[in-house]
């Protein structure tokens, strides 16, 4: 008997709980050369903004101990070209599709979501609220409960698809942010986005990123991400998607045990582009070995001391 990997988030059923993480899989075209995207629980696109963005100048990634720093700067084709140039490809893929949306003003989030509303194949929208809010002088939306609630509420006014709010880890009290997101009307929470970090070249005395600082991701941050999921689980009623340093099925299981109902795989894709497929296979084996029928049976089952 093969274990059941199906999970349901906000009424949407996913064939398995393993998704790509935003910004780590482009729009899926390159990964499709490595494995059929139908093997994914869902594809999450890189962040889409209203206008196209070139991103920061290179270097915009750097290798660190068991991880990486990036300051890509939300490089993307913009929502119009996403719809005209990319969606035809995505429409042909037999996988759930989650479009990640970013912006620097609430109105930008709202406009992008409004344009995505009528595209049938898009199953959910994930809001990247870890962007600096231009209106509020650069403070990130996701670092403040009030801004979090407000931006989500505004988006929910126009969006007819289920909404995932993606939380930043760079906050004192992530539970307060999670509750604000719930209050604003989010249907699902995904956590975490990257952790603020930097690195310096000691020969040139230059930061390793032209943006001077960036986001730390990869195995190094897994303990941090896991603690955030653990902190939020049961502190609000929304289902959680765990993200951060997931490299193999073992990492994924840790997130399920801490309360994640699905996981996203980011940086690991850069090393093993077929990592999600490996994780799905590993999960099946694990559940079989443990004689557990469904992945749902392990969610939140960590046995705290």
């Amino acid at each position, binding site marked *: 008997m093969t274990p059941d990997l199906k999970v349901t988030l906000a009424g949407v059923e996913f064939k398995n709980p393993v998704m790509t993480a935003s910004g*780590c*899989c*482009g729009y899926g*075209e*390159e*990964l*499709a*050369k*490595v*494995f*059929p995207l139908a093997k994914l629980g869902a594809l999450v696109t890189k962040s889409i903004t209203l206008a196209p963005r*070139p*991103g920061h*100048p*290179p*270097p*915009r*990634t*750097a*290798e*660190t101990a*068991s*991880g*990486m720093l*990036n300051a*890509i700067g939300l*490089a993307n084709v913009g929502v119009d070209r996403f719809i005209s140039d990319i969606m035809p490809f995505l429409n042909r893929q037999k996988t759930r599709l989650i479009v990640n949306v970013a912006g620097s003003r609430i109105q930008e989030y709202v406009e992008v979501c409004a344009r995505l509303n009528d595209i049938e194949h898009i199953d959910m929208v994930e809001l990247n609220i870890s962007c600096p809010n231009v209106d509020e002088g650069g403070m990130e939306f996701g670092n403040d409960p009030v801004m979090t609630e407000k931006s989500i509420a505004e988006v929910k006014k126009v969006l007819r698809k289920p909404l995932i709010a993606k939380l930043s880890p760079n906050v004192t009290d992530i539970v307060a942010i999670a509750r604000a997101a719930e209050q604003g009307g989010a249907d699902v929470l995904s956590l975490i986005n990257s952790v603020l970090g930097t690195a310096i070249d000691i020969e040139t005395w230059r930061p390793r990123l032209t943006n001077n600082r960036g986001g730390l991701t*990869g*195995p190094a941050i897994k303990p941090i991400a896991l603690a955030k999921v653990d902190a939020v689980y049961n502190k609000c009623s929304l289902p959680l998607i765990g993200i951060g340093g997931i490299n193999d099925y073992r990492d994924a299981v840790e997130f399920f045990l801490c309360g994640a109902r699905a996981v996203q795989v980011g940086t690991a*894709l*850069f*090393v*093993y*582009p*077929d990592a999600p497929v490996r994780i799905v296979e590993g999960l099946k084996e694990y559940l079989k070995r443990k004689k557990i029928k469904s992945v749902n049976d392990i969610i939140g089952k960590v046995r705290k001391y």
Partner: protein
Amino acid sequence: MINISCEDTVLIKKRSLKNAYFSFTFGPYSRVDQCYPGNFIHLKLSETQIYFRRAMSVAGVNKKKKEIEIIFKVMGRGTELLSRFKPTDHVNILGPLGNTFTPPRKSERAVIIAGGIGFPPLMFFAGELVRNGYDPERIEFFYGGRTAADILERSRIKKLGVNFHPVTDDGSLGHRGLVTRMVEEYIKSHPDEKLRLYGCGPEAMLKATDSLGLKYSLPGQLSLEAPMPCGVGICLGCVVPLKAGGQARVCADGPVFEIGEVAL
């Protein structure tokens, strides 16, 4: 649609060349038939020791034995670790990646400009041209280095029958001077030939080659390098600015670009 594999191979042959250079042959590799000059492979050197893969140009393939060769120089942590691998050690290869050199037309003469760690793909390229019937006499293989010790695999290159032009800073082998200076002299002394340039090597060499192409209106291609987290086009970490505006990913849109295309 699916054409990139991610597979474990074994180090079969290890040759130590001069100057901290090594030739490694891996196999069996299922994709030897899909490896063309310009393509590279992305090597996972250790499950946890070094996070990112390291990019290496295909330096040769043995289709019958299903073996693939790379030639690399020890530059930092990754290549240092790789250099300590021993035959029977495993390595995970993601590939083949990137685009390829466009062969010259029959009417054209191929002017190859190699330097430093840029010579392996060009040696592979020259070899494949010859194997495919291109007249080796119409290949000018310029290869620059600081001293004679920097010019590797000489007999192997000469055996192809190409016109081999080693150039060293100190004159210890071949011409003395900068390789691109010699190439310019060659261009100037062959005004009636249709030349096509192919460059791979240090940044300064690429820039000079690019300038030569533009100055003398010669077509050609440059193979670029950039730190590559993913190698498959999904991280956007390896971008370079294009002269026409916008950016290109060295891994997925390159590594081979037309002369004049990239803002070097």
